[in-house]
């Protein structure tokens, strides 16, 4: 696969690893947050950690739309689909297993008779509504700026063709507000308990919003930002670029992912999004609580396709499982193994928190790919890689 395989090359990785090891100052520690779950996944999936010096520590950020989706939003969708047999609730595969109240999830609501369907694309949800005029098709939309434009598009299309039985529960959230929240958190800003030397900036979010929005963070908070692709070599290169900025005392926005990200981003998509959506005053993020101006809602002009209006859905905030440390983990304050129920009560089979759901969640990534590191290996007859 062109433009994929080249960015996963093990030989190049070895060279980059050597370069990073050389450039990193052994006299200090580096702590970088990869904002995106995509980077978290790449690090775990390809074993990037094994290629980094011990003094370079990666902190997983809140950039996983599944992980930050609050319980109350899923509850809302479950209530709707279980109370109205005429509703087909469709959503991306990622959302189906997110734990909600009463030990339910959309998958379990389906097992209880709710007509919940997985779609690959927002367009499939729209097609379903055309195909079933006698049903109410509700698209449960999640995602950051990357996933928002397709949702905007299908809402516009539904309006254009007058498709009255289609509507959207909009859960789209905004990256910059989340980054700001972390930078404003006491642990980062005042207590210093979360040392944060820089960010790896989003790959695909940035294809839409461009690199410009990050300039504020670099300037205002003096944190270097490197926008990077989601392939493992991209991640390593970004780490190298961050180390250089730190070493050189710079705090700039650099773009490693120039093959797909420009300064301006995708203006067409941006225009579409602002036509259909407007800022919510505030929105709950799992782990980050209410974050002001951090999410989108459907504009008045499209209210007929806003499931929250159409069905009078009310959001009710629900506290996380008491033992769950997702919040602290999403803010970089804790790591999965700090959670008392990690790997015992909370597993991908029975996730207690949302970080255990998506393979981009910090807990799931560590459980699925990394938990062998937590246990001393007794012996191993065959040589592992050095």
């Amino acid at each position, binding site marked *: 696969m062109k433009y994929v395989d080249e960015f996963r090359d093990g030989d190049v990785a070895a060279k980059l690893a050597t370069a990073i090891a050389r450039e990193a100052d052994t006299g200090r520690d580096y702590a970088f947050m990869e904002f995106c779950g995509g980077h978290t996944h790449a690090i775990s999936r390809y074993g990037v950690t094994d290629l980094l010096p011990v003094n370079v520590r990666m902190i997983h950020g809140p950039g996983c739309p599944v992980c930050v989706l609050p319980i109350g939003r899923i509850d809302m969708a479950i209530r709707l689909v279980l109370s109205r047999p005429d509703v087909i609730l469709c959503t*991306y595969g990622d959302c189906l297993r997110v734990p909600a109240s009463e030990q339910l999830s959309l998958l379990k609501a389906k097992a209880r008779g709710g007509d919940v369907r997985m779609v690959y694309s927002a367009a499939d949800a729209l097609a379903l509504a055309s195909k079933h005029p006698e049903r109410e098709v509700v698209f449960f939309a999640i*995602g950051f700026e990357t996933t928002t434009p397709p949702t905007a598009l299908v809402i516009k299309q539904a309006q254009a063709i007058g498709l009255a039985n289609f509507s959207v529960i909009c859960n789209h959230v905004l990256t910059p507000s989340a980054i700001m929240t972390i930078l404003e958190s006491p642990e980062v800003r005042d207590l210093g308990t979360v040392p944060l030397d820089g960010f790896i900036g989003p790959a695909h979010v940035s294809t839409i919003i461009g690199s410009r929005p990050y300039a504020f963070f670099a300037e205002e908070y003096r944190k270097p930002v490197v926008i990077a692709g989601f392939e493992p070599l991209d991640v390593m290169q970004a780490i190298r670029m961050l180390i250089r900025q730190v070493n050189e005392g710079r705090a700039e926005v650099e773009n490693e992912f120039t093959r797909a990200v420009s300064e301006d981003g995708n203006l067409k998509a941006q225009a579409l999004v602002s036509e259909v959506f407007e800022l919510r005053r505030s929105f709950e993020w799992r782990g980050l609580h209410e974050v002001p101006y951090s999410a989108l809602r459907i504009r008045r002009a499209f209210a007929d396709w806003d499931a929250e209006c159409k069905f009078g859905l009310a959001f009710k905030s629900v506290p996380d499982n008491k033992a769950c440390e997702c919040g602290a983990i999403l803010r970089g304050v804790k790591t999965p193994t700090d959670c008392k129920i990690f790997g015992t009560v909370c597993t*991908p089979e029975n996730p207690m928190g949302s970080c255990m759901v998506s393979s981009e969640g910090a807990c799931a990534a560590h459980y699925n790919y*990394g938990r062998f590191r937590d246990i001393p290996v007794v012996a191993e007859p065959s040589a*592992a890689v050095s």
Partner: protein
Amino acid sequence: MAEIKKGYVRPLDLKTGRIDMGHGAGGKAMAQLIDEIFARAFANDYLAQGDDGAVLPAPEPGERLVMATDAHVVSPLFFPGGDIGCLSVHGTINDVAVMGARPLYLAASFILEEGFPLAELKRIVDSMAAASREARVPVVTGDTKVVEQGKGDGVFISTTAVGALPAGRSLSGANAQPGDVILVSGTLGDHGMAIMAQRESLAFDSEIASDTAALHGLIADLLAAVPSVRVLRDPTRGGLATTLNEIATQSGVGMTLDEKAIPVREQVDAACELLGLDPLYVANEGKLVVIVPAEAADAALAALRDHPLGREAARIGEVTIDPNCFVQIRTGFGGKRMVDWLSGEQLPRIC
């Protein structure tokens, strides 16, 4: 089945006819269905006994029995490379064969949904009969039930195979030992991806075809060449990852795999990228996991590659000492990570 003297003169309408509840009620309609579709396709002396159970020659003296069963519920029923009919023959034969046994007989039970077209049923049964003939494992007894529309999904087929295990042979998932070598007989993920490509909600075009095949021939060759094989298993649902975790747990060992060595077709790999899936968790229906003592690994690999179903066999890893029974992998990238059991269902993801 016995030749049932026809109280019916008109043959089944195999063009436009459909299954109705009468076909499962035990009377004449069922007798005709069995006669004109099942008995005709499977024709063999055992089935022709026509009694409630088939009387069959026992295994050779000294041999033990092996018995395995699988329900087949695949959707769609027809897919590139096969259909539920041949799949239901291969799937169960393979479970007997991976125990080191010669598969001898198959029993088949059908759950048909009211309204299912007879023409499709015939295609499926004919495919099943062809697979059974090719494998030389006859369907010796069967059963047919009909459920109301909306209470089934076209056709479900449960098959049970009985085989004979030669004296002294012992293959089990509990036999893997640290230092052993892990082989696979060919590319991974073909079956599962061939099915997913057909799903309306995911639809993509590819040349991916199911690998569904009966493996007892390949296994016979392998065991003849390398009697010291310790474990055989077909990595079906849950894929290679889950199968290896099962074996690791059963044997109380760990494993380390070499990602670069694991054969995956480019299109399977690409489809996995598109859907956010991992080929190690995708189902296979004609592949073999082989665990052999290190000294026999080359001979085993050669034996596999000598057979048409093992041309792309590869050595993919080793068995390790690990009380946690973790399966780990050296990534192509140069790092290391775990390969865990499949959790839940493989769902396409957007993130």
